[in-house]
């Protein structure tokens, strides 16, 4: 099973600042192993972030997003103590959903 994401969601002013790290190979499909065999592509294709049941970001990715992907964005209207939920889905159908509580900012 896929590993949990590391999510940081913090209020900065009236915005929620979200930083997330995902554990994923992001294998391009273009590399070969030591035996010369192609290593099959394995990568996250979809990411969606929801808050209060509403999508605040959705992304489609190709194979050139770096291994163990990092994503940083901001949205308005979030409140400390509420949850941000993030889901990724890869090309092999593996899926992972994690959530984080929004921390109050200074």
């Amino acid at each position, binding site marked *: 099973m896929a590993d*949990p994401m590391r999510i940081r969601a913090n209020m900065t002013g009236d915005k929620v600042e979200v930083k997330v*790290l995902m554990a994923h190979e992001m294998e391009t499909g273009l590399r070969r192993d030591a035996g010369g065999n192609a290593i099959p592509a394995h990568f996250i294709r979809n990411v969606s972030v929801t808050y209060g049941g509403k999508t605040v970001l959705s992304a489609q990715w190709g194979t050139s997003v*770096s*291994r163990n992907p*990092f994503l940083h964005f901001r949205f308005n209207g979030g409140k400390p103590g509420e949850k941000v939920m993030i889901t990724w889905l890869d090309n092999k159908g593996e899926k992972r959903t994690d959530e984080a509580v929004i921390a109050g900012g200074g």
Partner: protein
Amino acid sequence: MRIDRVLAGVLAATLPCLSPAQQDTQKEIERYRQMLQESNPAELYEARGEELWKTRRGPRNASLERCDLGLGPGVVKGAYVRLPRYFADTGRVQDLESRLATCMVTLQGFTPEEARRKPFSGTGAPMITTDPFSGVGQRSVMTDLVAWIASESRGMTIAPSVSHPKERLAYQAGERLFYYRAGPYDFGCVTCHGEEGKRIRLQNLPKMTNAKDAQRAFGTWPGYRVSEGELRSMQWRMWECVRQMRFPELEFASDASIALITYLAKQAEGGTFDAPAIKR
């Protein structure tokens, strides 16, 4: 943008020593390294390692929570910066990785071979996918544990133990090995790490006999290497340097590897530990 750069080049040309192109390159590489600091995937490994420490594994279905890393059974906080050290139960000087292998044997019931089978995680670099211990995308329990245990010494002072005669012997042997030149390229550790302010390509090389350099180097391993998309341990660092020195393979947790690490830890004494870091 081109024109700006040319202009900047003309201005920089009035400065001595470094050519403008060199100055720009160094400055931008520094900026790149700064940008990487924003987020370090080592966290993902640390989280797994913390779980694995508590996970019952092996023939004895036991966790590592009673493992003695030198500060008493189960003490993880601050353990990394006091290693390598002499352990009476094994009669050996051990670094973190060889010690974890010991605990996997004594507590979890693995054979010594099993405990050392896959010390490094699968590599993102096709160049070295031939590593027999791992394959692409494979994980290493050892590496994950190392990530977490090292992170539990973050901010602490590097203070390896050097009071036992065997610790001193390891230090002195490590120093000799550091200067040992051999192989088809005549390399030794000292070839790349004996002078101040040098680089391979654009990668800065620490001079290991210079305390500040050694502190920075030792204090930032283990590290997440973006070039390979993997977390790398100090044992791996030794293994990989030795491979590039064109030597035969340095065995994981071998006495030579531990002697070298002991030497480096002692050179870095007094530095602040800040790992797992993120690196090229």
